């Protein structure tokens, strides 16, 4: 059996790093792309797990095309692609509709839904050419999403529109690609994510330190992504919402 090739677009210390570690440990070739691939956490992934780092502004069509070309050349055609970009620019957080800056709203859309479109398009073009695996699947495309995919919060208009656009894209791609052997999944994470810090605690920059598993642990989210990839095509999940057991919703 040939090895899986995974591309994770959007790289940082959370879900992407957990996925990169788990995918590498599971025997996959792993590529991770970020605007700044020299972040220490990504360098650590390269050293410890052989993850290849790529620079990519995923809201630029040519950059995304080049990223996929490079990965194909270096590692082979992808069988698992994770779009993991939040897309919000710093200045758009907690801005009411009357005060939100239109250019920042547009930039958020470009970073989130538009980059998901670009990544999904490149992934689909390549995967359609893949030889089907033993169970007939040509690949898996997973979109990390957020609570805003399910409900629009006050003072979060730009992000709500970006996340719901991403959901619509995922749904449409699923309808088009699943019958052609490509599993598409939308995974809204309805939670704060607390990753393990150097001191062993888990924390989120706004929600504080995790206690009693009240925040999603990205190492376990990665296990769910891997399970989605391994699901048999006779029983594929499309939308999987994840939240901690204590989450109010």
């Amino acid at each position, binding site marked *: 059996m040939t090895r899986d090739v995974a591309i994770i677009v959007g790289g940082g210390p959370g879900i992407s790093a957990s996925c990169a570690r788990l995918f590498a440990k599971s025997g996959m070739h792993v590529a991770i792309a970020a605007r700044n691939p020299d972040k220490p956490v990504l360098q650590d992934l390269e050293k410890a797990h052989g993850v290849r780092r790529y620079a990519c502004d995923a809201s630029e069509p040519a950059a995304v095309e080049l990223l996929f070309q490079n990965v194909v050349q270096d590692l082979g055609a992808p069988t698992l692609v994770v779009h993991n970009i939040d897309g919000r620019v710093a200045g758009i957080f907690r801005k009411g509709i009357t005060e939100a800056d239109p250019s920042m709203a547009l930039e958020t859309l470009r970073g989130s839904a538009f980059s998901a479109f670009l990544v999904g398009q490149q992934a689909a073009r390549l995967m359609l050419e893949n030889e089907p695996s033993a169970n007939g699947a040509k690949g898996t495309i997973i979109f990390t999403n957020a609570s805003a995919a399910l409900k629009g919060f006050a003072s979060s208009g730009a992000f709500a529109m970006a996340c719901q656009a991403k959901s619509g894209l995922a749904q449409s791609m699923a*309808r088009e690609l699943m019958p052609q052997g490509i599993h598409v999944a939308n995974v809204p994470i309805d939670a704060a994510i607390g990753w393990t810090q150097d001191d062993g605690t888990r924390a989120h920059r706004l929600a504080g330190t995790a206690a009693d598993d009240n925040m999603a642990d990205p190492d*376990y989210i990665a296990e769910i992504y891997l399970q989605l990839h391994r699901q048999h095509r006779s*029983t594929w999940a499309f939308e999987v919402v994840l939240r901690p057991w204590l989450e109010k919703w």
Partner: protein
Amino acid sequence: MKPVCLVLGAGAGIGGTVGRRFAQEGYHACLCRRSDADGLKRLVDGIEADGNSASGFLLNAIEPDSIEARVAAIEAEIGPIEVVVYNLGAQIGDRALKDTSAKAFETGWRMGTFGLFRLASAVCPRMEARGKGTLLVTSSTAAMRGNAGQHSHAAAMGGRRMLCQSLNAEFASKGIHVVHIVIDGAVDAPDTLGKMLGPERFEQLREARGREHDGLMLPAEIAETYLHLAKQHRSTWTHEIDLRAFSDRPWWNH
């Protein structure tokens, strides 16, 4: 003492197959179904032939006290119920409103919704006392949309879905993982689809869409996802999941 995986609605499709998969993971499978003692024995024998343990019980989920007494007896005699799989179907085929009797509607509700309420009432206090437990609830397309002729089934399954949400709201923070699993397609299951279609049409369907086409949902593969759901870490639980064959149209596109 092994933890118990209790399955209500254990036919040769999802129920029995999920029980067998959990037995492979070290659970004692308690398989319950309304009728067909021979079929039940075959399922138990199959699990024992794997070198694992199981018990079979005939149980009519509509009868008063049947579920409650079975839960109490299992807890007393076999072990703590850590996982329950509520897998009772309530599909009676398409019937126009005028052909849907009050009795048929009520029976659908008893199997679709009320039985789950009774099961939850029996197991949740025990799970809560232990601080953990998993309720895996098989559900269907009818939980998401009411199709023509589905008055009884859609109402029953819609009720099942909302009950799952309400159970989750009360018990998730007490360590009980409640999952509503939308099986949005036809399952390659002889005891349900097979009986509904009859042997000849079932074989035709398997020939056309099942087998190597993977267009009928395979219980053994569905069971892998049930097992994964039961193993999810509590920091990242899913409450509702939809499953269908890759080639099938989902409920929102029909």
